[in-house]
Structure formats: structure tokens, C-alpha cells
């Protein structure tokens, strides 16, 4: 393992991401501040003002303009970043799809926050889950440390010549974005070396080789272009592991599409994204002490959806609870739940599966809530069926 780690320093998740952006030193950042992402833009603006980065910072009048400016800059050949939350992402919507369809490797940390209405500034995943079909790669982070590291890793994923897709790096608003934890930073030159210099394959500014971005594309070829996007997302599943390995070799942290905790011999398991997975770990230790074989599966990468990894990880599990910090109003459960059920259907394993919508608008999730889920799973295992497929955890009835 390369010795690139220094002493931990106290940083919030937002500060950690801003630090990653400083070390990446992108060519262009176009951003508009929104709670709880604000600190990222604030700290990064300081780096620009202090001359610590050479980035062209474009302060825009809205998120729609932020993403539009990012599309222009990225198409011109610049390494481009922005950051947003909730309604900011919603306002970008039109251009979010365009960024992906133009195959522009834009990097966007998203600090997850509930969408209005009613107005709420706290954490849930309704913002990025709404954008799950926009063609962006999505990585969900448990801690500020992970948000820091994944922001660096995302550059290589997005810009890989056989991927060329924009990436969202998601972390939980306030829960990790505003909590101070010890964060181990990498050396500036190591980060610089890892992300390398960006050389766009087809930049607009290369007048010797003129290209067109975003022309009219009707019945004749639109479908093929969408198909290429689709193949790129599928292909990313094969390419990203190589980048995980390179990251580990450079910085020492081992990443995979999923993270598991005591899952190998677990009878019952929770599947959860981001910080809630952390809260589950202590509960698992406690239950293991009582002889209950509980485990955890945390998808890190949600787009592309790591089907094979998930099926393999769940192969010995008998009952699974999928925790969704977003409601999809489908009357059929949350977005992670429906994905998990979908991949299980075409697999050889048939665990009992149940869904818990939780934590909307920042409603806290405590270890006792997690305990209740495991206790429900134990009961389901005993009765050989789940009593309620879709549950609301921590909500007043």
C-alpha cells in the first residue's frame, strides 16, 4: 500500500468534498449555492479567490444556468464540476439529461435533501432518486471520508474513454455534510497524478476537427444514440473495477460497487444507502451478540445497478429488508426496493423481501428503528412470509 495518508483533520462532509475539488483543480466550476450544499461552493469560492486553484468559477443565477454552463464548458473540452441539492437539482432537470446524452463527463457532488413541498432542507434521497433515470452514474457515500475519496475517483470514472458519462457523488445532507469527523486527506500531488490531465476526445474548441453537439436527432438516429448511452452504462460495470483497483493501489482504500457487513453467514439483512448503513453496523454487532445472524448490504454505486454483485452477496440470506430514504409514489414501494426485487426475480435465489420507507425530510433514524426492522425480519423468517411488504419506519400512523 502506498504511504499517502497523513494525520486526520476535522472536516465536515461538505468541506471534505470542497477539498477534493481543490485538489482536482478542475478547469471550470459553474455553481449556485443551495442548502445543504452551500458550504461546498463557499469553500471552493475561497480557493478560487485565494488563487489556490486555477479554476474558472462561473457564479450563475440559477441551477438551470449552472448545468447549462457546465454542458458548454465540458463540450468545449474543459474538466467541469458543479454541486447541488434538492430543488437545485430539480431546476437543472432538463440539462441534467442533456449532459448525459451528450456524453459529457461532468462531476457533480450532490448533498441529498428532500424535494419541496412542503419546504424542507433536511436529508432524504428524493432528489437524486428522481434523477436515477437521467443517465448519470450515481455513487452514494456513507461518510464525509467516502464523499471525499469518491469525488476524486469519480473524475476517472466519468472521463474514461469507454464510459464518458457524468457522475453524481451523493452524501446525506446535514447528517454527513455538516457533521465534523476526522478525514484523512491524500497528498495534493498524488491526487493530481491520479486524476491526470483531462484531454477531451472531441472538444468543440478543436477547430481542426469540427464536431457538433446537440443537433436535432429524430426518428432516424435518436434511438441508436440512446442505445449507445445504455451500452456505455452497462459497460461501466466492467470498467469501474479496474479504476477501483487503481485507486486502492494509489491511495490504499479498497472500493467495490457494494459494501457488506457480516453478510456472509447472515440469515437476515438490511439493504440501505449512505449514512443509515453506518447506523446499522452497531445494531448488527449487538444482535450478533444475541446469536442473531444479522447482516448489511450497502450499494455504493446505484447507477449502473450492480446486479451480479448484489445477487452474489445475498445468496445465503433468507430475508431482506430494503430501506428507502425516498418515496416513489408508485404504490409499489421505494426505488431501491423495486430495483432489488427486479434483480432477484431473474436470479436463482428467493429471499423474502420487504420495504421500509424511512427518514423523509430528515426524520432521524435511530438504532432502535433498525432493531425493529431486524426483529420484523426474524418474525418473517419464522412465519415464512412478510406481514407487510411496504412499511413506513418512524412515521406517525
Amino acid at each position: 500500500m502506498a504511504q499517502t495518508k497523513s494525520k486526520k483533520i476535522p472536516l465536515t462532509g461538505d468541506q471534505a468534498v470542497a477539498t477534493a475539488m481543490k485538489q482536482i483543480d478542475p478547469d471550470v466550476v459553474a455553481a449556485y449555492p443551495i442548502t445543504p450544499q452551500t458550504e461546498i461552493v463557499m469553500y471552493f469560492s475561497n480557493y478560487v479567490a485565494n488563487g489556490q486553484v486555477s479554476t474558472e468559477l462561473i457564479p450563475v443565477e440559477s441551477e438551470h444556468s449552472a448545468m447549462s454552463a457546465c454542458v458548454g464548458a465540458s463540450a468545449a473540452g474543459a474538466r467541469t464540476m458543479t454541486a447541488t441539492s434538492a430543488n437545485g437539482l430539480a431546476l437543472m432537470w432538463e440539462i441534467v439529461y442533456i449532459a448525459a446524452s451528450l456524453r459529457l463527463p461532468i462531476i457533480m457532488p450532490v448533498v441529498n435533501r428532500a424535494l419541496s413541498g412542503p419546504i424542507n432542507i433536511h436529508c432524504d434521497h428524493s432528489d437524486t432518486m428522481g434523477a436515477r433515470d437521467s443517465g448519470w452514474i450515481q455513487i452514494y457515500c456513507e461518510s464525509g471520508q467516502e464523499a471525499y475519496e469518491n469525488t476524486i475517483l469519480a473524475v476517472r470514472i466519468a472521463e474514461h474513454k469507454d464510459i464518458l458519462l457524468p457522475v453524481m457523488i451523493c452524501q446525506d445532507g446535514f447528517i454527513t455534510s455538516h457533521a465534523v469527523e476526522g478525514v484523512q486527506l491524500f497528498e495534493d500531488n498524488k491526487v493530481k497524478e491520479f486524476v491526470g490531465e483531462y484531454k477531451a476526445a472531441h472538444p468543440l474548441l478543436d477547430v481542426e476537427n469540427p464536431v457538433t453537439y446537440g443537433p436535432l436527432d429524430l426518428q432516424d438516429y435518436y434511438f441508436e444514440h440512446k442505445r449507445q448511452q445504455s451500452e456505455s452504462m452497462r459497460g461501466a460495470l466492467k470498467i469501474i473495477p479496474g479504476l477501483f483497483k487503481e485507486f486502492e493501489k494509489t491511495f490504499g482504500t479498497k472500493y467495490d460497487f457494494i459494501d457488506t457487513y457480516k453478510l456472509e453467514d447472515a440469515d437476515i439483512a438490511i439493504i440501505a444507502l449512505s449514512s443509515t448503513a453506518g447506523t446499522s453496523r452497531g445494531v448488527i454487532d449487538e444482535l450478533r451478540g444475541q446469536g442473531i445472524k444479522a447482516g448489511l448490504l450497502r450499494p455504493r454505486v446505484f447507477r449502473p445497478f450492480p446486479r451480479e454483485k448484489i445477487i452474489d452477496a445475498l445468496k445465503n440470506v433468507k430475508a431482506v429488508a430494503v430501506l428507502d430514504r425516498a418515496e416513489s409514489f408508485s404504490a409499489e414501494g421505494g426505488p431501491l426496493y423495486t430495483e432489488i426485487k427486479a434483480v432477484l426475480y431473474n436470479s436463482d435465489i428467493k429471499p423474502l423481501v420487504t420495504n421500509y420507507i424511512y427518514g423523509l425530510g430528515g426524520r432521524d433514524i435511530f438504532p432502535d428503528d433498525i432493531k425493529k426492522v431486524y426483529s420484523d425480519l426474524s418474525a418473517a423468517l419464522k412465519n415464512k412470509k412478510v406481514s407487510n411488504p411496504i412499511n413506513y419506519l418512524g412515521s406517525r400512523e
Partner: protein
Amino acid sequence: MPMVEIAWHGRGGQGAKTASQFLGEAALDIGKYIQAFPEYGPERAGAPMKAFTRISDEPIYVHSSVSEPDIVIVIDPTLLGSVNVTEGLEDNGILLVNTEKSPEDIRKIVNFKHGKVGTVDATKIALETLKIPMPNMPMLGAFLKVNNIVSIDEVSEIVKAKFIKKLGEEKTKANIEGIKRAYSELRLG
């Protein structure tokens, strides 16, 4: 040592968040795992608010707010009548209050029969040392008296390192004096 969970009660602008982070940073500096975070609501200056610090020898994975603190620190005594500061405080818990009142009086006011209660007039100490009514750093001194996860010398060193550039030598010394005075003037009962 198991994880220590601390809840800070103050009003917006009194430095509860700063104190929660400062304690966390001091513990991080000596190699502990830490979390420090405020409870965000619709903050404004003067409104009741909470902040939390977690310190442990092991990595901290839990990301909920602190519902069963080991130690509760009340920076503003006027909260005692309106906020249930002992909520979740276990039988062996410790309640530290910035007040001129005695621990016995505070016990009666908050109806806390177990554990320990400590009182110190941190506002007076702040006025005499820093010349401003900012009781958060003295309350950190009170904490150091009842919990030795970080020593008062270690905290003094970190105050020095962090404040000297920003505040200058005089105010840095005043901060350390405030911490030390509250440390020695804390009454426990």
C-alpha cells in the same frame, strides 16, 4: 473506553456548536475517533439549539443524533424552564449547567435525582477573562473536570495552536484562563 456522547444545549449564537466541535477536534488531535454536529432546525440567534459530540477509541459509524447522552452541558441557564435538558440522560449521567446556583438547586429545578450535577458561573468567568459573555469555552473546562478523555493540558495546547493566529496572544490566554477557572470552580453535587 466505550464511546462518550455529549449533548450541548445553548441558544443560537452562544457557541454551543463551536464548543462541540472544539472538544471533538481536541480529541481527534490525540488520536480518538470523533463526531461533532449541531441539530439543525430553523436557527436564529437566541433560539434554543443543540449540538453533539461523540468521542471513541473505535471508529464511529452511527449517524443518528444523540438520544441518550452520557453528559449534558447547558450553556444557557434560561433554557432550564423551557427545554427538557435531562431527556435521555441515564441514571449515571452527568448534567453540567452554567449558573450561579448550587447543584442541589439545579437538581430541584430539573427534577434530576440520579447521577451527578455540576454547576459553575461560566458567564461570570467569561466576563472576567474574555470580557464578553461567551460561556462556551469555560463550559468546556467544566466538562474536562468530569471526564478525562482529553486532558486540560491537551486542550490548552490546542486552544493555543488554534487561537493564537486568529485572536492574538491576549485573547488566547484569556480563553485558556476561562477554561482553567471553570475547571477548578466547578461545584459537583
